[in-house]
């Protein structure tokens, strides 16, 4: 199960920690399959304090991973949330013990379709069980048990990370002191499922995909995955951001080429996004993780009433959305806020003005940092967490 790593997995595992879980007792997934043993790759920053009260779990979005605040072992780029995490930043490792776990089904070291089925010794590929956001969170909870961390000062994440935050708060309310779901929703909308389906169809239409068994054929559906990424990337931006960045500007030319090269800068940009993505992401993983997001529906899992998911919750919530985010628009965050109010939970909600679309949560948004810093300060006071402890 644990040999036969891809180049990217080897580099990832060499730069982070991992644990083998589910050896004694497999983990029951939502689909009914028992998974075990399985590997969870994770990264930590800072030190767990003596009373174990300063642990912060960062839940990563679809295409990011556990390398939050350091040079990425595969891409060489800086960490995806370095604007937020680091010395002197809002999430300072001098104060918090920060953990980020590569989600189940992903391809940066945690078990997913790249791994081998321990029962058959064959690569899982599409035989890997379909995992859900709840399964991802269950696996994270199992890892925290393994690490002896009873509860979390804060669980924070954006997009799919935000879905995990909501799932954490709903499933393990006593283990979550504060929760910060950013730019997310309690369920994936029809439009979002539709965009994911386009991406999946692009992958599966690539002849190199080979029914998911491309590794056995020593190939990869790179073009399909690149198209999937290009489509998805558009949904992360906004019309204003695209207009501001590119407009109709031409790429390395003075006049239209009357052909199908990347005449426009926006085309060149998307092609670049697509081609670099395939170096760090596995196509089958992309199918599984997008599926997990599509399946997410927190209300459905609680008798159709979202407020039931948060009944009696002791957690302090802070939700944030962005004005130009059309993938997870503000009204979807507000739906969660209404449910939290109906459950009389402690909730703050801020909509941040930004023209950067869904991606705003990954970018330098001073208003987001200010809000988060104030919220964490208040929560730390309530938790009795000392400055710099």
């Amino acid at each position, binding site marked *: 199960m644990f040999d036969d790593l891809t180049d990217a997995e080897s580099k990832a595992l060499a730069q982070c920690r991992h644990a083998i879980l589910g050896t004694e007792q497999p983990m029951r997934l939502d689909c009914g399959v028992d998974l075990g043993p399985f590997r969870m790759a994770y990264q930590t920053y800072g030190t767990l304090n003596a009373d174990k009260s300063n642990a912060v779990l960062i839940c990563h979005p679809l295409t990011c991973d556990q390398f939050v605040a350091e040079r990425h072992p595969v891409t060489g780029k800086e960490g995806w949330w370095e604007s937020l995490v680091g010395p002197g930043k809002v999430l300072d490792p001098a104060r918090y013990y920060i953990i980020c776990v590569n989600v189940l089904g992903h391809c940066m070291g945690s078990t997913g379709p790249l791994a081998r089925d321990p029962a058959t010794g064959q690569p899982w590929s599409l035989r890997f069980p379909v995992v859900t956001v709840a399964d991802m969170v269950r696996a994270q909870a199992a890892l925290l048990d393994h690490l002896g961390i009873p509860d979390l000062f804060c669980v924070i994440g954006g997009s799919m990370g935000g879905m995990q935050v909501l799932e954490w708060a709903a499933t393990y309310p006593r283990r979550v002191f504060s929760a910060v779901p950013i730019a997310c929703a309690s369920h994936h909308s029809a439009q979002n499922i539709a965009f994911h389906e386009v991406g999946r169809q692009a992958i599966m239409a690539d002849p190199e995909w080979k029914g998911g068994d491309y590794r056995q054929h020593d190939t990869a559906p790179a073009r399909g995955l690149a198209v999937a990424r290009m489509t998805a990337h558009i949904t992360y931006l906004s019309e204003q951001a695209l207009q501001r960045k590119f407009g109709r500007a031409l790429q390395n030319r003075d006049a239209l080429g009357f052909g199908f090269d990347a005449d426009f800068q926006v085309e060149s940009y998307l092609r670049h996004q697509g081609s670099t993505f395939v170096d760090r992401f596995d196509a089958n993983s992309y199918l599984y993780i997008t599926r997990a997001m599509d399946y997410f529906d927190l209300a459905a899992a609680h008798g159709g009433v979202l407020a039931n998911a948060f009944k009696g919750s002791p957690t302090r919530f802070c939700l944030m959305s962005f004005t130009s985010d059309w993938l997870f628009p503000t009204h979807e965050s507000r739906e969660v806020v209404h449910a939290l109010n109906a459950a009389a939970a402690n909730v703050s909600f*801020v909509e941040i003005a930004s023209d950067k679309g869904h991606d705003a949560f990954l970018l330098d948004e001073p208003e987001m940092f200010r809000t988060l*810093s*104030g919220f964490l300060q208040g929560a730390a006071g309530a938790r009795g967490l000392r400055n710099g402890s």
Partner: protein
Amino acid sequence: MSQPSSIRVDLQLIADMVEPGGRALDVGCGDGALLAYLVDFKRVDARGMELSQAGVNACVANGLSVIQGDADTDLRDYPDSAFDYVILSQTLQATREPRAVLEQMLRVGKRAIVSFPNFAHWQVRLRLVFGGRMPETPSLPHKWYDTPNIHLCSIDDFRALCRDMKVTVERSIVLNRNSRPINLPPLLANLVGEQAVFMLRRD
């Protein structure tokens, strides 16, 4: 504990009505001055609702639990008796349906604390009767065409509404133009009082 920081006198009066250690919702909490006071000096589990996004963001950045919301529409989301106090300070006259808002406040809270400007204040009366113009006073500073205050009432009007709603007035304080409490018979209070603070409870 440090000395209580100073807040507006009318807010201080409201704060004084709140028993320590309970749960309170401040509807239209503005920049969170009252909320912060309740949290810091009365150990109240205090939450806020505010219409302006700038106000909400400022509150949350100060560590207060505040959401963006509208008194007219968003109180419905809260369960019955979720709070010991629901506070509405200087906002009732700007709601679309003041009576419905009061009903919601008294459903969500065991008690409601409401403060509002008195439209029967002598300056208001003089300006309308003798000036022939819509009143502009320190507590009602807007022009008729840009005022957010669409449902103004007098202290006596408010008492009548409470009777009509069969709501018990536990306390009422009338304030003069310096926001100092005054103790006068009702008829005079309705003439001299510039604003009033009421604490209500369901029967």
